[in-house]
């Protein structure tokens, strides 16, 4: 599928989508509530068949948070980047996609650990790198830790 067709497919599921082409991929920004439906559609639909989630990134912007999903189809060879925008920066929540791609289970735990984004329906949402009693979420931009972060 070329990018135009992909756009149409995405629009048919999530009409309020914004598109952007950067970094060699088609970037799709959607509200977080739409994510699971879109992901499931892209995974299951015969024309798209995005079966390989190769990168899952959390991002902290001043007003909102974003979870980025890099998808690729091993049969069709096309790629897409979904950016799910979470408006509530203080208590971010989003649906898990670990039921669609198994690898997301670990990656979502990592994002939860470092950004504090809660993935609803995740089978085992715990901190993965840090200790269970760690305060705060280190990769957030407003995280301060005077002991461990040395400013050069």
């Amino acid at each position, binding site marked *: 599928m070329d990018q135009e067709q992909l756009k149409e497919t995405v629009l048919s599921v999530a009409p309020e989508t914004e598109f952007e082409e950067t970094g060699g991929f088609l970037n799709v920004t959607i509200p977080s509530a739409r994510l699971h439906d879109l992901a499931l559609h892209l995974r299951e639909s015969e024309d798209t068949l995005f079966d390989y989630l*190769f*990168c899952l*990134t959390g991002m902290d912007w001043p007003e909102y948070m974003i979870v980025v999903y890099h998808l690729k189809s091993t049969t069709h060879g096309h790629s897409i980047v979904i950016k799910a925008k979470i408006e509530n920066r203080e208590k971010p929540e989003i649906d898990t996609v670990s039921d669609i791609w*198994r690898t997301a289970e670990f990656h979502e735990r990592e994002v939860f650990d470092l950004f504090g984004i809660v993935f609803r329906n995740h089978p085992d949402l715990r*901190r993965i790198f*840090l200790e269970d009693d760690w305060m705060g979420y*280190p990769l957030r931009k407003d995280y301060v830790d005077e002991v461990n972060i040395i400013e050069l």
Partner: protein
Amino acid sequence: MAETHINTISGKPLESQEYLINMGPQHPSTHGVLRLLLTLDGEIIHKVEPHLGYIHRSIEKMCEKDSYTQIVHLTDRMDYLSSHMNNEAVSLAVEQGLELEMPERVKVIRTIISELTRLSSHQLWWGVFGMDLGAITTFLYGFRDREMIIDIFEETCGARLTMNYNVPGGLMFDIHPNFQKRTKAFVAHFKQKLPEYDQLLTGNVIFELRTKGVGILSKEDAISYGVTGPSGRASGFSNDVRKHNPYSAYSQVEFKEALSEEGDSYARYKVRIQEMWESLSIIEQLIDNIPEGDYKAKTKAVIKLPKGEYYQKVETARGEFGVYIISEGGKSPYRLKFRSPGFSNLSALDHMAKGAKIGDLVVIMSTLDLVIPDIDR
């Protein structure tokens, strides 16, 4: 799990408990500080729960403060066995942002050193794999051959492991005059020694018993878990970045993507051995054809990436390594994400080890070729 067995004499149910074992963080076969919480029933594994973070250094956070030239040396310390490829990924991502075209010489040298790194990583893996199986001698044989590659690195790049030879915009220095001679000597040497690897392990009946049918990962699962690299290719998941998205000089060389269908530990082993042959062939094709030219493109002293997003993936010895840079136009990235192959490969461990025995777990872990700093970052 806790099943109820009936005492055959008294007829009363026996109570049994789950047997929980901490494998690691100090354990000879976790190769670093990986901690696995095993749930056992006798020798049989019911659940493997990795507990990570013992060597988490928050490299992604550090990158948000560093300049692009400084970021490169941090990637050495993630997957230290494919440090050159990691460096290359960051350099390529930055060059993509700067829209720099590399001189041919840089591309070829980067490819040769990448393949040498892959070879050295696979040699170490082979040695360690034998050791995990109990054949400790292989460890030294693998290291003997690896030492020659490390010497090449030391002479050209200045360090043995954490080379930091790539810089955004080219290479740190030109290759050493001895580079070609040494590399050719190594290729000739290793072509003789690689059959010995087969003789010692591949055909061995005990080795086949230990690996065949152990830790089977189907193609669907490999894709779903994002298991890449030789581990994924052994399941039939064609994912070689060098083939699908060629970078550096990979489009100029002929090589086969080592694939297998079985998806068991033996297939993963064979794929890696096959990859060593392919790497040797790639090096042979390039080593005499290093074009003349600059070893570096012109860059500004302070590199500032234009606002935007850049994703670059390379094939390391462990799989697909991705660098995702989000730049706001400054001299350091707004956010930088490393997609490390080990992390995704580890996520499949529980699935693969279910129902296997303790001895099998060691084999599965070893054939996944985990490098812990790569997982923890």
